């Protein structure tokens, strides 16, 4: 029931695979089409970040149940260069204003919960959850 689906990210093609996995699970959980599109966009950004900055990593997607709510959790893992100044990366408009796309602040906005753990030289782990309303 609570099994995780993981997709190796190592090419642009695998971004699509991660999106597909996310959309399928989101639909199963019962998210509507707008939220499906939002979750997929968030996954796209996370996978793209891995592909661009860490070269390879993993996107894992699972259904989460907490008390009386149910949601989807997306985890992005990589052993890339890590993020030096997390405060700066998470600043509003830091990424979008450069036209680079939604970036991490965008993912945070698209989802309900967002945590990031990063060590320079060791890699980055990002967890993002969206609850079904």
């Amino acid at each position: 029931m609570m099994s995780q689906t993981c997709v190796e990210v190592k090419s642009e093609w695998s971004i699509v695979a991660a999106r597909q996995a996310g959309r399928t699970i989101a639909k199963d959980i019962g998210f509507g089409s707008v939220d499906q599109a939002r979750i997929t966009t968030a996954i796209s950004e996370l996978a793209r970040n891995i592909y661009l900055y860490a070269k390879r990593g993993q996107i894992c997607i699972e259904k989460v149940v907490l008390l009386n709510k149910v949601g989807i959790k997306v985890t992005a893992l990589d052993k890339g260069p890590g993020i030096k100044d997390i405060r700066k990366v998470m600043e509003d408009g830091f990424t979008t204003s450069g036209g680079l796309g939604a970036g991490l602040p965008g993912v945070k906005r698209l989802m309900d919960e967002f945590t990031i753990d990063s060590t320079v030289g060791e890699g980055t782990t990002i967890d993002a959850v969206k609850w079904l309303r």
Partner: protein
Amino acid sequence: MDKFDIGLHETYKSILAEYLVTNSEHSLYKAGKFSRELIKNNMSPEDMINLHVSVVQTLIKNLPKEVSDTNDLLLEVMVGYGLAYLEHQSLRDRQKQINSEFAVAAKMQKQLLPIEIPDPITLDVGIKAVAAGPVSGDYYHLQEDENGYLSIAVADIIGKGIPAALCMSMIKYGLDSLPEQRLRPGALLENLNRVIEQNISTNMFITMIYGSYDLQNHIFHYAGAGHEPGFYYQSGTNNFQDLTTKGLVLGLKRTARFQEYELKIEAGDFLVLLSDGVTECRTEDGFITRAEVTTIIKKYLHLPAQKIVDNVYDELEKLQDFQLQDDFTLMIIRREV
């Protein structure tokens, strides 16, 4: 189908149904009002698209499957706009926060300026100071002392905004901490220059005119630091004369020297001190010239000093299409008798 407010769904459905029958401007007007309502409720554009799609599905029977497919793709594109929209809302909140900070800062700046304009019996003084942005980078000073001197200054920090506001408080504390040098305005600027040179970064400069008006003998002692020259108006000839000064801007060179001048003011004559925001205001047809400023002043010669500066401001504000390019400071000191 996503859930959204049933009221919105019904409203949009009735507008759309009406439009399908009437094709009328009246329905489109309702759509415009509806749009305003959505934005007021922070409804994101992809939710709006979804609402539209869902209403279209209930209104048009046998909608071709292809049309629904194209809507799915449209939704995907609109999520990007949704992000921009969310960013817009948080920028707006941030902007509101900064605006309220600026409001407090502007109040603090006001406290650096004279609380009331001195009104010596023999003089008529008018001052108009307006910041181009939320905080000012112009500073002025007007203070009558117990020895019968009125000290007068106008300063302009090169640059605007927050850094200029930070600088401005330094000028005030700098002036406060310096001993009075009524008859030696050049020496005063030398000391102030040293304070500034020590305390601010190499790329912040200040222009200033500083003078001391001898209320007994009507002699104006002054010196300038790279500042926009003022004017001396002689009622006898009905002419303006430039108050040119020699001296570098403050903060540039620690050992700068400032030439001192003195000027005898006759009854009916007046001094005009200003910042370059008055003379360099940009209009559609280029820049205002100094001659244009004096021409405007001449139109209001018969009025009290405060009315003159107010009127000059009003005219120049309008010429600039109500968008000041630089902080504006204009001061008139007229010898009445």
